């Protein structure tokens, strides 16, 4: 517990380090806003169309696959910590766990859903 109290103390320091530079700059810097400075910067051209363009859903497919493997890696973490003390069959079970997901990865790959269209 005391360890995490220290982490809490350190978070306070980290936030100070995050806030201090912009705050200092705010005190030091000139403030002369005008309406042209605040215009959207898109290579000097005037912006056109809505800002919130649609993105390719392909980006999203990778994110979905990411979530699955993210959970899988997190599930394996306790196993990895216990690894040195496990019998062989327990290791093989974890490998089986991985292999089931590898099937999924291979299937998704073969179907071409991981390929940019």
């Amino acid at each position: 517990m005391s360890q995490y109290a220290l982490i809490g103390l350190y978070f306070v320091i980290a936030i100070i380090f995050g806030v201090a530079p912009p705050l200092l700059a705010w005190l030091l810097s000139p403030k002369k806003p005008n309406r042209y400075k605040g215009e959207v910067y898109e290579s000097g051209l005037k912006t056109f169309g809505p800002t919130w363009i649609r993105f390719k859903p392909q980006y999203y497919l990778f994110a979905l696959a990411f979530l699955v493997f993210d959970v899988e890696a997190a599930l394996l973490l306790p196993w990895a910590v216990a690894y040195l003390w496990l019998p062989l069959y327990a290791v093989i079970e974890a490998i089986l766990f991985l292999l089931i997901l590898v099937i999924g990865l291979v299937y998704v790959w073969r179907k071409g859903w991981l390929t940019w269209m």
Partner: protein
Amino acid sequence: MVTVQQVVFALFALMTVGGAVGVVAARKLFHAALWMILSFFGVAGLYILLEAPFFAALQLFIYIGGVAVLIVMAIMVTRGIMGPKEPVFTYAVGAAGTAFAFLVMLALFIVNVPAWMGSAPTGEVAPDGMRQLGRALVMPSAFLLPFEVASVLLLAVLVGALFIAREKE
């Protein structure tokens, strides 16, 4: 006498519930997602207070680093970004209010269960708890079956989600 732990608990509880209220009340979906992250963060802090740091890190890793990222990206992909300002209080308010009242009553009941009143935990946390957990996950006598089933579930999610979301030509 208010102890340090209670103050910290109050802080994280405020973060958690405040974030949750923000999810309900925020007008822009993106803001709702940010409130949700605050709420997740508060829950992670509570896990630390409950001496389960591994689960606090898991909370950050899976909920904030995984689920919340996906939700924010979904908001950005669909029009919800700046979308129409949705009215927060709709006809569901009655139903939800009833459920809310019921749960608050349940919570008040919970407070009065004598077995749960004791303020001190019944024992210490095992120092090598994570190793025991890792062992239990692959032991046939413990949680091997759910562990492997989780893998099958993840396989189904991987294939299913990508199948649903892919661009059909």
